[in-house]
């Protein structure tokens, strides 16, 4: 047996051991998840920038098509087309505040991936766990296609396709496909597919669960088949466009981008696209025939097609916006799928918040009024009425409300404020407010990024594996 398969089997066993209490067996999902032949086809690459430490250590791992930035350790792991973005990690001597604690970092924070398999997974942000401030760990974890591990140390976990764990320490949990969890700390939970859960204990608790059958049309996972659904089909249809950017290490720079904006080398930008000041387009983003107004951003695995984004729009990791007019300051959460049609466009009013993992799939024009919160599955006006609320009305909720499949308990004003503060922070971090040399963020700093590639063994027992490499200045 080749080294690649040995290590893969070991990872699967480790994950299963951690999930034994849930009686959750990842073996059928892991089978064929990473075809060994694919592991030699793609090089890995890493960024060098003056703004983040260059400190990479790869040990006994395969890294095909994956990207690394900042301080990362990868050991006994398989990564396939994953993005390990360490550009928001905490730095030495920085103070991390948690409740009444002020924790001073002894060293620069590091992303540590051990005994894990990540497929087309995004790892970003930093550890929010006060018990592990210097190490954002991912251990004994299997993450499937288009999952996001965002500021979420994870041990002994399974993430189904399009699952997101956000600002949460996750131990021994199975997160179903298209589920989004932001809950501080969870353990030994089996989260059903299509569960959207945002919990801040003592403050608010938001829970929406997708209806099983309609969700299955978009994302499905079963032990018998490879994952399928409209979301996979959508990505597959646009796959070829990425071939060009990954085939060449040094592409010609695309012109007509303002000096204050950043277009990643590994993003696809197709004609009739207009990019204004302070815009950030991250790697693996796809932009076609669209306008990104001042300070808008498109993060990893985003698709923005035939759409107009007014400005200061956050399009979070994996969100897709098609045939839509998006007003100013709209947040579109992780992995949301806003799918208007040429003859039935989606219009979203300014200041609205599209919750993570929202699906709006319409065959008639639809308008989300300004300053609304939208969640769940919306296919027409009736479903929009059931799955949205004016932010002003939500701020008046003092104890609880439920609507359709949504359960909300806690203080509505805190929920809205927390989201708005976070949106502001994301814009700030991305350099949306850059002016006259001040307030620089990723959009400006990434312009100083250069890329290097590393290659796997193409022969022998170690075929597909990468040599042990330590990269430091």
């Amino acid at each position, binding site marked *: 047996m080749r080294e690649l398969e040995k290590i893969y089997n070991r990872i699967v066993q480790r994950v299963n051991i951690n999930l034994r209490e849930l009686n959750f067996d990842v073996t059928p999902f892991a089978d064929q998840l990473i075809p060994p032949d694919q592991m030699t086809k793609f090089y890995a690459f890493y960024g060098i920038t003056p703004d983040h430490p260059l400190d990479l250590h790869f040990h006994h791992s395969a890294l095909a098509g994956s990207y690394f930035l900042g301080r990362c350790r990868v050991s006994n792991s398989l990564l396939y087309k994953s993005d390990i973005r360490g550009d928001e990690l905490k730095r030495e001597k920085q103070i991390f505040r948690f409740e009444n604690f002020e924790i001073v970092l002894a060293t620069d924070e590091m992303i540590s991936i051990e005994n894990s398999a990540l497929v087309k997974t995004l790892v970003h942000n930093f550890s929010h766990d006060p018990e592990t401030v210097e190490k954002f760990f991912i251990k004994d974890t299997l993450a499937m296609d288009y999952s996001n591990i965002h500021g979420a140390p994870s041990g002994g976990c399974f993430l189904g396709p399009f699952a997101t764990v956000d600002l949460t320490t996750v131990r021994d949990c199975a997160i179903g496909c298209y589920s989004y969890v932001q*809950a501080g700390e969870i353990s030994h*939970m089996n989260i*059903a597919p299509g569960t959207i*859960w945002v*919990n801040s*204990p003592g403050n608010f*608790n938001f*829970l929406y*669960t997708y209806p099983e059958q309609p969700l299955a049309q978009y994302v499905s996972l079963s032990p018998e088949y490879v994952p399928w659904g409209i979301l996979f089909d959508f990505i597959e249809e646009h796959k070829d466009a990425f071939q060009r950017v990954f085939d060449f290490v040094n592409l010609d720079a695309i012109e007509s981008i303002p000096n204050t904006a950043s277009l990643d080398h590994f993003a696809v930008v197709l004609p009739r696209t207009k990019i204004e000041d302070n815009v950030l387009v991250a790697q693996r983003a796809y932009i076609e025939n669209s306008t990104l107004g001042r300070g808008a951003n498109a993060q990893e695995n985003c698709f923005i097609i035939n759409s107009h984004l007014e400005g200061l729009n956050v399009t979070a990791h994996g969100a897709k916006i098609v045939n839509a007019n998006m007003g100013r300051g709209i947040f579109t959460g992780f992995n949301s799928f806003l799918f208007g049609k040429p003859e039935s466009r989606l219009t979203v009013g300014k200041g609205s918040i599209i919750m993570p993992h929202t699906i709006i799939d319409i065959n008639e024009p639809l308008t989300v009024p300004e300053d609304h919160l939208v969640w769940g599955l919306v296919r027409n006006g009736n479903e929009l009425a059931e799955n949205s609320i004016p932010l002003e009305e939500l701020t008046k909720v003092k104890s*609880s409300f*439920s609507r359709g499949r949504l*359960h909300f*308990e806690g203080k509505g004003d805190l929920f809205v404020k927390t989201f708005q503060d976070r949106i502001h922070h994301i814009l700030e971090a991305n350099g949306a407010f850059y002016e006259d040399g001040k307030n620089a963020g990723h959009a400006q700093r990434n312009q100083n990024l250069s890329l290097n590639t590393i290659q796997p063994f193409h022969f022998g027992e170690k075929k597909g594996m990468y040599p042990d490499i330590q990269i430091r200045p």
Partner: protein
Amino acid sequence: MKNCLVKDLMIPISEYATVTLGTSLTDAVLALEKAQNAFTSSKYQHRAILVLDHDGSVVGKVGQLCALQAIEPEYNFNDKIEEIKKYNFSEEYLVRLRERYRSEETVLETDHLQDIAEKKVEEFMQKPRPGEFVAENGTIDTAIHRLVSGRHQSLLVTRQKRIIGILRMADVFAAVSHEIHNLAD
């Protein structure tokens, strides 16, 4: 109290209302009602009926709550509530949610009662649980501890492995109360 034993306060099975396995819900409810209306040596009514197997051994009991649970429709929302419980909602919220779901379901109807009338007692009886037994020669102190720690309404009294009677909480309380009166005097 020190010299008082469980067997001094228990009601022998022969004096207790019983039904056998295979009894229908209707007959069990009627037997329970009859038992509660009947005169007993104690001023307290029988709160439950015992279920005997074909050898006459006690295999379960049926109280009012148990009977009502059997009569209540199997609400579809119970699973939903159990699932939501995982997600850190307060008990207060869950109570409100349960009430909301229940109000959306059909209330008890004649058709439903007819449908469940033939339900067999073994489908809804409460089977004896560990900690629900006490030996006939056990002390009342032991019995009190088991009633309190297990939140039981009664205990099954055993002679070796066979259940021979019932020790009801009401009778134990009456005995304790009597003792306190004596001390006060």
